[in-house]
């Protein structure tokens, strides 16, 4: 116990930094995290090929360096040209685990990557886990990324993703962030090639005093690239959420389009909900849109749901339950399913 107390720690001062900053006093520009810093003297480990160093990750360089210094081994997977990999690549992250994964998807290949963080954890267990996933998608590649995060109330989880998409590559991302003491997620996608596209759907739930911090960046370098980012979350009690989304329409990205939209349902009086949507534009012939709907369940919705037998409390519970059911229905593997079931607690008990 004494040894644990004395474990060295490191403070990462500026994590999940949005590319364009706003007033510091709003405290939405970044988050500061304290993480363990175990020495690795004497370890033998593998690093990813250097090619992955050029992939921008959502949580920033500092977190990438920290994960590389803490992960026991880096895991490298290559999907050969034109091959459709049937079995998903599953990154299962348990309490205290730090993983570093690199996936090379060769031209025309297809792969599913699943990050499942938190399955089997017990509430009350304290610790920090992290996952770093970097993907290089070559021309015409297809990448399906599923991120399921639901760690314990005493846990901190860092999840950083970086994807580079070449000509005509397609990336779809399904994020389910189902709570945890502190969950920080960063996602960066570089649509480097013409006609590359990313579709991202993020659903989140935070309650109690949980902290959720999300930073997502799409750089659109290629012509006629497309990004569709959609967020839908429920915040309860005194949860704190920060969401930074940036669509960066870079000079030369003619015909590029980017859309981002967020719907947040606030169910607690002490919830802190901050959103910083940004569209950066350095090209004339592009289109970028963003929209946000933040609020409680509307009187019209409550009236409609009441007419079907649901009281206000039932209606609010329905929104949370629907999120977990959606996560369960779309879970691509048992590890992801286990994360949802552990996070849902009694919410899904009636499903038997």
């Amino acid at each position, binding site marked *: 116990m004494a040894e644990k107390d004395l474990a060295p720690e490191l403070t990462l001062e500026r994590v999940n930094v949005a590319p364009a900053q706003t007033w510091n006093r709003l405290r939405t520009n970044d988050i500061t995290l304290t993480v363990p810093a175990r020495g690795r003297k004497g370890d033998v480990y593998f690093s990813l090929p250097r090619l992955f160093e050029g992939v921008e990750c959502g949580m920033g360089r500092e977190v990438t360096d920290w994960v590389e210094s803490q992960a026991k081994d880096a895991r490298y997977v290559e999907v050969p040209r034109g091959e459709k990999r049937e079995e998903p690549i599953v990154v299962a992250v348990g309490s205290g685990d730090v993983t570093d994964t690199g996936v090379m998807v060769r031209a025309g290949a297809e792969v599913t990557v699943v990050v499942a963080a938190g399955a089997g954890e017990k509430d009350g267990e304290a610790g920090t886990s992290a996952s770093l996933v970097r993907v290089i998608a070559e021309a015409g590649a297809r990448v399906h990324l599923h991120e399921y995060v639901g760690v314990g109330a005493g846990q901190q989880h860092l999840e950083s993703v970086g994807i580079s998409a070449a000509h005509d590559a397609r990336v779809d991302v399904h994020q389910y962030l189902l709570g945890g003491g502190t969950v920080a997620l960063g996602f960066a996608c570089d649509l480097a090639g013409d006609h590359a596209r990313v579709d991202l759907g993020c659903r989140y739930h935070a309650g109690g005093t949980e902290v959720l911090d999300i930073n997502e960046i799409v750089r659109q370098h290629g012509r006629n690239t497309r990004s569709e980012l959609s967020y*839908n979350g*429920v915040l309860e009690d005194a949860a704190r959420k920060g969401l930074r989304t940036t669509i960066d329409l870079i000079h030369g990205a003619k015909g590029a389009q980017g859309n981002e939209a967020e*719907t947040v*349902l606030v169910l607690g009086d002490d919830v802190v909900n901050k959103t910083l949507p940004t569209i950066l534009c350095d090209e004339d012939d592009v289109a970028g849109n963003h929209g946000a*709907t933040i609020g409680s369940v509307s*009187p*019209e*919705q409550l*009236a*409609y*749901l*009441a*007419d*079907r*037998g*649901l*009281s206000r409390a*039932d209606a609010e519970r*329905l*929104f949370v*339950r*629907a*999120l977990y*059911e*959606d996560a369960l*229905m779309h879970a691509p593997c048992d590890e992801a399913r286990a994360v949802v079931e552990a996070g849902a607690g009694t919410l899904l008990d*009636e*499903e*038997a």
Partner: protein
Amino acid sequence: MATQLLTVSNLSAGTEDKPILHGVDLAVGAGECHVLMGPNGAGKSTLGHVIMGDPAYRVTSGSIEFDGADVTELSADKRSLAGIFLSYQAPVEVPGVPLYSFLRSICQMRPELKTTARKFRERVGAIADQLELDQGFLMRELNVGFSGGEKKKIEMLQLLLLQPKLAILDETDSGLDVDALGIVSRGIQAYREQVGGALIVITHNTRILERLEVDRTHVMVHGRMVAEGPAELIADIDRNGFERFEKCEDCGGCPMVGDAE
């Protein structure tokens, strides 16, 4: 004579600043089919919502008795659980809640409808097929992005699933093409046959009534019930419109037009 299911007595109601219903009386027996007609703005939809317990309206006098109990002060969710169903003219969109989750939840609220997930899926699937509703829709968000016709079919899906004792259909036929109208009509007919529940059909369109055996017809003008009669009154209104009823209302407090006109 059917057992009395709904009794609305001398009901006056409105929004905070505007009275809409004035001393309305309406009696519906168990299993009966009543049609409520009237010109636009007569207060028909308001009456439906007030019976359902919509908090947007305030009852200033009178009472609503349902299934032997006074429900005037009861909240809408409790009235729903007691067996009243209101099909919306414009169903509300609820983003973030898949239709399937919603249906599952509203059935779980009713002990008589609680079942296993598997049996529930089968039941919902069968009703969706009956209404020619793509089962893929069940995974979509409640009423979000659906066409007007699809939304009405989803209302019918809920009606058949919940099997209420009384269904108030508020212009369920509005905005439907001929095919969709046929499907919805068959849904209503199925409700009558399978559940044997009572109906209050609020409509301007007599086509939706073609498959129904109507027990009574009511005419409402300016928030007042001005006429009541048998099914034949519908054909009369279809031919002659509401003008004579409106005249009736203008004279202020004239006796209701009875069965014998």
